């Protein structure tokens, strides 16, 4: 009987430990047990991405529709090339949409916001945004202002 209670409590302990790991994985790190949602990739070139990082969110009207999956430098145009994974059910990003690197709040994280245009043609896998707007560089703005280059 005594061995039984010991075994039960050990079983509970192991279950609690593994449960805690699952909790950390699902709740804290936001790992999804569901298979990866199907996504498609679109690309945008920016003159300046500021502090944009991989895994940053991509949103339309503030609603998250995907995330930044890769950031590189385009050798020819010497611009930042940002690869974004967009959820497959978002199939209305028109070809004339504008991708813009924005900041959440004044000092918050950088993310990509997309303004949908009015074209009939939509972006598919591997397509590029035709127009983009890089991060607003506050320091550059101030120095331009100070030297009245505006």
């Amino acid at each position, binding site marked *: 009987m005594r061995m039984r209670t010991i075994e039960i409590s050990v079983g509970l302990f192991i279950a609690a430990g593994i449960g805690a*790991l699952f909790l950390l994985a699902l709740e804290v790190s936001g790992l999804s047990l569901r298979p990866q949602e199907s996504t498609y990739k679109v690309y945008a070139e920016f003159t300046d991405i500021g502090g944009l990082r991989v895994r940053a969110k991509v949103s339309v009207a503030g609603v998250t529709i995907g995330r930044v999956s890769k950031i590189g430098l385009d050798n020819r145009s010497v611009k930042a090339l940002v690869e974004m994974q967009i959820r497959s059910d978002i199939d209305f990003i028109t070809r004339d949409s504008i991708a813009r690197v924005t900041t959440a709040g004044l000092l918050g994280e950088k993310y990509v916001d997309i303004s949908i245009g009015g074209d009939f043609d939509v972006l598919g896998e591997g397509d590029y945004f035709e127009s983009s707007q890089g991060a607003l560089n506050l320091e550059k703005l101030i120095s331009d202002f100070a030297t009245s280059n505006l």
Partner: protein
Amino acid sequence: MLDFLQRLGRNNLARLSALGRAGIFFFQALMHVPSVQSIPLFVKQLYAIGVLSLIIIVVSGLFIGMVLGLQGYYILVAYGSEQAVGQMIALTLVRELGPVVTALLFAGRAGSALTAEIGLMKATEQLSSLEMMGVDPLKHVIAPRLLAGFVAMPLLACIFSAVGVWGGMMVSVDWLGVYDGSFWGNMQAAVDFRQDIVNGVIKSLVFGVVCTWIAVFQGYDLVPTSEGISNATTKTVVYSSLSVLGLDFVLTAVMFGDL
């Protein structure tokens, strides 16, 4: 002068040979690991090492999480970014405080008990009588304890972190009024499963190996007197704590830095 040099040499030789004995002991004990008969022994040790440490782990996890929530809130609210308190709590706990504080408590709670238990077995010559009966003490006394320590420590660290995050949430969301959507949202955006949680578990596994190894070896290798037992117990706690803190720096540098 020569006497001093001789003493220095003797002390260091003794230390080196103890280190060597510890290594040989560790591998000999681990050679015996897998067998069906040893499962009840293992379960019993897991009870003594893991289940009985639960209370101290859960209580300290809860309070450390709550203090983190409180301190983080007061610092961050000055910059108007108190929503980031969730990510601060989670990253601090999962990367550092979870494994390290659990290991320190583990060394104090379970390590000292292991040393004293095995030390008393040695002092009362239970170990030698086992050997006389043809039972290998490494297999029946040491190996289950080592294994139980390896298993218990990561589980305890996970429980510590989870309880800590919950405690932090309780303070910052329920009491101080941080919006819970951004609390969890910021946390999930900042914490990466592979990078943060898996590395934290690896850390706690390493600490578990080191702490149990030190505890069991100190018990096995002590001078079989009452003074020897008390010395060995002290050494267990001191050595475990120091090696956990030192190893933590090395592991952090390797995992999160660009060394």
